[in-house]
């Protein structure tokens, strides 16, 4: 009697488990069915501008004063909804200006010629060949694309700011505050950012995708040239061949893709 009751309970228990598991199995079966239903075909747009390794050449001889640099900064910051925060510690910048001694600190000496001493230089993310920011990012939010552009996936950024510590050029800004109230005129086509994420220049990937040059290049009146560093016939290679150019902090080995004709 005692033993048959035990076995009855065992069988009852196992059956109950089996019944309970069915809805769970159903859920798994149905999710599989759904994901199978979506066989997305995705591709690049027809007008996309391609390169093996994007690079930018800045001809600083064509600039005389800060006024000459403003249109490029404004064009960039406007289309990307970059907020204007007056507090230096909260400032967000994708492209900005620096003096010679801060742009090329190892080249600075007290007998610099007057032009260079007083000139401001355009600075932006260098889209390095060996980007330090990519190495330190714990979530792979910052990554290097096949075409050399160092991009941020804002959906993955957790705001740890390791990338800011790693970048030797100060190219990255952190959103200490909600940026939206500080955007003068928003561009609805491009997302803003939110409090707690890092941001920087994206080489206008959204423009390259539809066949447009980066906004700063377009606004530069020919002072900025971008193109494929891997293509010996490209315009940037032609400029690099025929002019002496320097890069920022080359000794660090990051391999910047932004070149300056001084």
């Amino acid at each position: 009697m005692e033993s048959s009751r035990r076995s009855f309970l065992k069988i009852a228990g196992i059956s109950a488990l089996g019944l309970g598991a069915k809805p769970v199995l159903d859920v798994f079966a149905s999710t599989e069915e759904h994901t199978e239903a979506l066989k997305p075909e995705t591709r690049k747009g027809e007008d996309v501008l391609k390169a093996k390794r994007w690079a930018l050449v800045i001809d600083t001889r064509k600039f005389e004063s800060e006024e000459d640099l403003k249109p490029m900064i404004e064009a960039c910051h406007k289309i990307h909804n970059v907020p204007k925060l007056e507090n230096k510690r909260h400032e967000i910048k994708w492209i900005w200006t620096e003096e010679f001694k801060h742009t090329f600190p190892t080249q600075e000496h007290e007998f610099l010629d007057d032009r260079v001493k007083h000139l401001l230089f355009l600075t932006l993310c260098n889209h390095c060949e060996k980007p330090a920011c990519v190495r330190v990012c714990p979530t792979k939010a910052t990554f290097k694309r096949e075409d050399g552009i160092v991009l941020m996936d804002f959906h993955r950024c957790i705001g740890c700011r390791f990338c800011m510590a790693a970048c030797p050029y100060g190219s990255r800004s952190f959103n200490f505050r909600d940026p939206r109230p500080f955007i003068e005129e928003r561009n609805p086509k491009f997302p803003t950012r939110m409090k707690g994420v890092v941001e920087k220049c994206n080489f206008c990937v959204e423009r390259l995708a539809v066949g447009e040059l980066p906004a700063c290049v377009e606004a530069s009146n020919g002072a900025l040239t971008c193109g494929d560093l891997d293509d010996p016939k490209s315009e940037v290679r032609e400029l690099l061949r025929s002019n002496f150019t320097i890069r920022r902090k080359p000794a660090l080995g990051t391999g910047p893709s932004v070149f300056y004709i001084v």
Partner: protein
Amino acid sequence: MPNNKKMYDKGKVVAGLIIFGVLITFPLWYNHLKVAPAPEPKLVGKAAKAGQECIEPKSFMKAEHMLVLDIWRDTVVRSAKRVYVNESGKEFEMSLTNTCLDCHTEKAEFCDKCHNYALVLPYCWDCHIDPKEKM
């Protein structure tokens, strides 16, 4: 051990138990009297025009639009592809604001109504812009 089966303050204890039982089950019977009806997402704006179709069949979108958006953002940002081709060969730019909201122009009446009912609070709009919304 004294066999003391007498219950002290029986009346108060039982009344207290009944009140406790009523209070703790309050949400259950309250909601049974008044079940909030599921909102029927209203098609307004451009999507409401005759002959419009979503990017995938409606039943699929209803259940899986979050998966679509997840694939879209990864494909755009990480794989640098921006064009989506659906089953019937129609092409769309993969963009939350520039595509989904271009048809579903009334986000508040469409996406939000459904999400509020289901208590889903996508954080996408912290960055992605609803052109209708004042900042």
